[in-house]
Each structure stands twice: as structure tokens, then as C-alpha cells.
């Protein structure tokens, strides 16, 4: 049993009548990247905030790097790096100044700071922009700076809340490469995202959240096989035809999901004769996601 960087058990957080997190269990084994996947409003951001004690759980057990939250949260925070969903750089400061401020906030000694800043600049590929003010940077560079800022003290655990939200596909791929590199260097990572491809590419294990609790946990490929089978058939047609296909499939025990323009019949391997015309493809994590979190997003 490997040590756990994060261990949550039966965590509950209410805001008045609304239950944002409802009995969540979550493990992040040390040295792995865990993707927290779920639709908007599933409780991902609340969970991320609880891990730095900026939100206090109503009940349940929370441990980060062996420290019990919220009591020992400060010790845990000293060893964590946080990449927020919303850009909160100091915009009138340069790249280097932004990093230096965080080298102080994370208590690096005088002798360590210079080296730490150089390393963070290098990892995020911002060395040549060190003297640029943060608001002169492109969206992708600002994101890289946010990540660099979270890495300046070499955290053991990196918490990333929707790290690539709102970015171009090219920029997103660039960040994926950076995150993948960190993981390969042994940093534990918890990353919330609602981009399925992101979770599929980066995460060793994925926890799918819906309505505040974990509905499935496992390796992306295993989750796909377990919930959506191996092959999927997408049937296209007018809405009436789709409803008909859906009805027939359900009657014969095949699970389906809507994709908007088609009906996807899941787990159709070994059912060749009885199927309507359609396009065959492999099952993917998106099928699992929609199946488990519901077709309609509240």
C-alpha cells in the first residue's frame, strides 16, 4: 500500500440547504496524478478549497501529506503548490517579481531564493520573459507563470483547479507536457478538470464526481471497459429515428447515451447481427462520464 498524499473520507460540506460535497472519498497515492472529473457544480472546486483549508468541511476526515486538516493545514500548505482556476497574478509585477514574492511566502531562505526562481523560470519556459510584466503576457504564458509560481518551493503535492480552462488547444497541449513532466519527476498531483481528454491523457487514476460524491474511481482505461464496454456504435438520424433506436437498444439490454447528434450504443462487442447501421468506434472516457454523471447537467 503506497503512502497517500491525499486521503479524504466521508467529507461533507454544506452551504445552507445546498450540499456541495456529500460524503466524498478520495485517495491520491504519492507520486501519482489523479484527475477529479465532473460537470460544473459537482463539487470539484469546493473539494480543492478544502485541501488548503480555505473551505472548512462540516464533517469527515481530511489528510494532506499526513497532516490532519484543518488543524495542521498550515504545515500541509507549506508543502503544497496551488494553481488556481482564476488568474491571481500581481499584474503590475514582472514575471520574476511574481516568483520572488512567492519564494518569500513559501519561506525559502535567502540563499535558496535565486536558484528556486531560476528553476521555476526554466521549468515554465519563461526565462526570456522574466522582466515582462504579468499583464504583458499571453494567456498561455500567464498560466505557465501560475504553475511556475506554485512550483517555486518544490512542493511535494500540486493542486490544480481546472489548469487549462479557457485556453487554446495548442496552449493546452503545451501545459499537458509540463504537467506530465512534473509527474514523471515524482510530484503528486491532484487536478480537477471537466475536460475529459485532459484527464484521460494525464491522470493515472480518475475520480468521477457527481452531486458532491465520487461515483467511480479507477484507471481511465479500466473505467471505460467497466462502464462502457469496448466498442460503441453511433447511430445518426432525425430525432424520431434516434428515439426509436434508443428504445430498441434498451429493450435488448444495451446501454445508450445521447451525444447530441447521435445515439451511442455502448458495449456492443459480440452483438453484431442485431445492430442498426452506424459508425463503430472504441468506447472512451466521455461515454463513462456522461453515463455516470447524467445526460442533463443541472
Amino acid at each position, binding site marked *: 500500500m503506497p503512502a497517500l498524499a491525499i486521503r479524504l473520507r466521508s467529507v461533507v460540506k454544506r452551504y445552507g440547504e445546498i450540499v456541495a460535497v456529500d460524503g466524498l472519498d478520495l485517495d491520491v497515492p504519492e507520486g501519482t496524478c489523479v484527475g477529479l472529473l465532473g460537470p460544473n457544480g459537482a463539487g470539484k472546486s469546493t473539494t480543492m478549497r478544502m485541501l488548503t483549508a480555505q*473551505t472548512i468541511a462540516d464533517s469527515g476526515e481530511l489528510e494532506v501529506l499526513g497532516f490532519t486538516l484543518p488543524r495542521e493545514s*498550515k504545515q500541509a*500548505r507549506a508543502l503544497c503548490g496551488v494553481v*488556481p482556476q482564476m488568474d491571481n497574478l500581481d499584474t503590475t509585477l514582472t514575471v520574476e517579481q511574481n516568483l520572488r514574492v512567492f519564494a518569500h511566502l513559501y519561506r525559502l531562505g535567502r540563499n535558496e531564493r535565486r536558484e528556486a526562481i531560476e528553476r521555476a523560470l526554466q521549468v515554465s519556459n519563461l526565462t526570456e520573459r522574466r522582466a515582462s510584466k504579468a499583464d504583458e503576457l499571453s494567456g498561455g504564458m500567464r498560466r505557465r507563470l501560475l504553475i511556475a509560481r506554485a512550483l517555486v518551493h518544490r512542493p511535494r503535492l500540486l493542486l490544480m483547479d481546472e489548469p487549462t480552462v479557457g485556453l487554446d488547444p495548442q496552449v493546452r497541449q503545451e501545459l499537458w507536457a509540463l504537467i506530465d513532466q512534473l509527474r514523471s519527476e515524482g510530484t503528486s498531483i491532484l487536478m480537477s478538470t471537466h475536460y475529459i481528454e485532459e484527464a484521460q491523457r494525464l491522470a493515472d487514476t480518475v475520480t468521477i464526481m457527481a452531486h458532491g460524491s465520487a461515483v467511480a474511481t479507477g484507471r481511465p482505461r479500466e473505467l471505460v471497459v467497466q462502464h462502457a464496454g469496448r466498442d460503441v456504435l453511433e447511430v445518426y438520424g432525425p430525432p424520431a429515428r434516434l428515439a426509436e433506436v434508443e428504445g430498441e437498444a434498451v429493450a435488448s439490454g444495451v446501454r445508450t447515451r445521447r451525444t447530441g447528434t447521435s445515439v451511442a450504443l455502448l458495449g456492443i462487442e459480440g452483438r453484431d447481427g442485431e445492430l442498426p447501421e452506424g459508425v463503430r468506434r472504441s468506447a472512451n472516457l466521455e461515454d463513462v462520464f456522461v453515463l455516470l454523471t447524467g445526460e442533463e447537467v443541472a
Partner: protein
Amino acid sequence: MSRRPNNRLGRLERSAIQGVLVREITNFGSFWRSTTFASTVDPTIYLLAFGFGFGTLVSRVGELDYVEFVGTGIVATAVLFSSVFPAMFGTFVKYQYQRTYDAILAAPVDTEELVTGEALWIAMRAGTYGNVPLLVAMVFGLDPSLGMLLVPFIAFIAGFGWACFGIMIAGLLKSIDNFNYVTSTVITPTFLVAGTFFPLSGLPDWAQVLGNVNPLHHCVELVRHAAFGWDPSHDAGHLAALVAFAIVMWRLAIRALERKLIN
């Protein structure tokens, strides 16, 4: 892992407060010119307006020339303005718009340390800019005195209290527009009824009572006594009032911001 082993992680740690200060000082590098300009020009205008305006009508207040009276009084105004407004607006902008506090509190810094660091920094600025009116008044005939060397410390303590008041207001109010209510009902009366431009002794009894609970009045009195001669029996009381104001506001500011930031 590069961390000094004897770093105790408790309450009000120096390294956490220092981190908050470093952030503020670094940011100050990008706007100190405008702040310094305003902090120098404002008291000059007050001195000219009141000095030459009222000065022709009122030549003396008690034993002081009017320019001596106003020149020392405006120190308190400068302290108030250079602490309460940056605290109110700065705090609100940093948590609501820039989300700076989310980032700071994700680091090993607690709300208590954040508030303390922010208030200390504003108090240092108030302790510096609070001296400008004295320097300006010297140009208009105020005689320097040894006691004036204590004015930065008086301004620092008063500035700390008002900075915490401003942080508390920012923590309590939901919208930056509502700051107008506080400015009109608290800050304007505070700076007018403090014995700055006219002595409290001429006011009706009820206003004198209000003036005496006004922390700014205690600041005004201490600064005048520092400049023109101490009054030991009263000055201990004035100092105690300022320190008490600072401590109470400090705790209230921490509580208000904690409610806002930790939920």
C-alpha cells in the same frame, strides 16, 4: 526539500507576516510615485486653504498661531487618509477582484498573519506620510522641536488602528459602492470633529463627548503635545486610547476577513 528545520508553524509567525510585507513592498514599487504625490500635495492644499483662509479670521487658537494649530492637526488627517482608504479599497480589490488573498492563504499564511502584515505595512506608510504636513507647515513658519521626532510613532499606532478599521469594513461590506455610507457617516465626521481645524472646546457638550471618543482626536492631541510640550497626565490617556483602538480594530479586522475568506 529545502526548509529550515526550526521553522515553527504556529500563530503570528514572523516569516508569514514578512511574506505578506514583501508582496506589498514589491507592489508599492509600481505606484509609490502617485501615492507620494497625493500624500504631499493634499496636506499642502489643506494648509494653504485653512492657513490663508481661516488664518485671516483666526490668528490664534489658545496659545498657538493658527498655522501651528492646523499644521499639527493635519498630521492626523494625513494619517487617517493614508491608512483607512488604502485599507478599505485595497483589501476589497485584493479579495474580490484580484483574488490575491486566495493565493496568499493557499501558502502557509493564516488570515491573522495576512491582516497583521497588511495593517503593519499601511501603518508604516501612515507613519511616514503623516510627517509631511509638519514639514510643509515648517515652510509656513512652524518651529521644529525635539518632540516632533516621536510623531512617526504616534502616526504609526493611529495608522495601524485605522488600517484595521478599513480592513474590517472591507470584510463586512458586500459591495464597494457601500463604502460611501462609511465615508459619509464615519470618516468625514471623524476627521472634522477631531480638533484638527478648530478646537473641540468651542463645540456643544454632546459633540465634545463624541470628539473625545474619536481616536483621531487622541492622535491630534498627542501630535500637538509632541510638538509644543507634553502634558503627562493627559498624554498617557491619549496614548492608551490609541493603543486600545488599534488592538480592538486589529482583532475585529481579523474576524471580519476570516468570515469573508474562509467559508
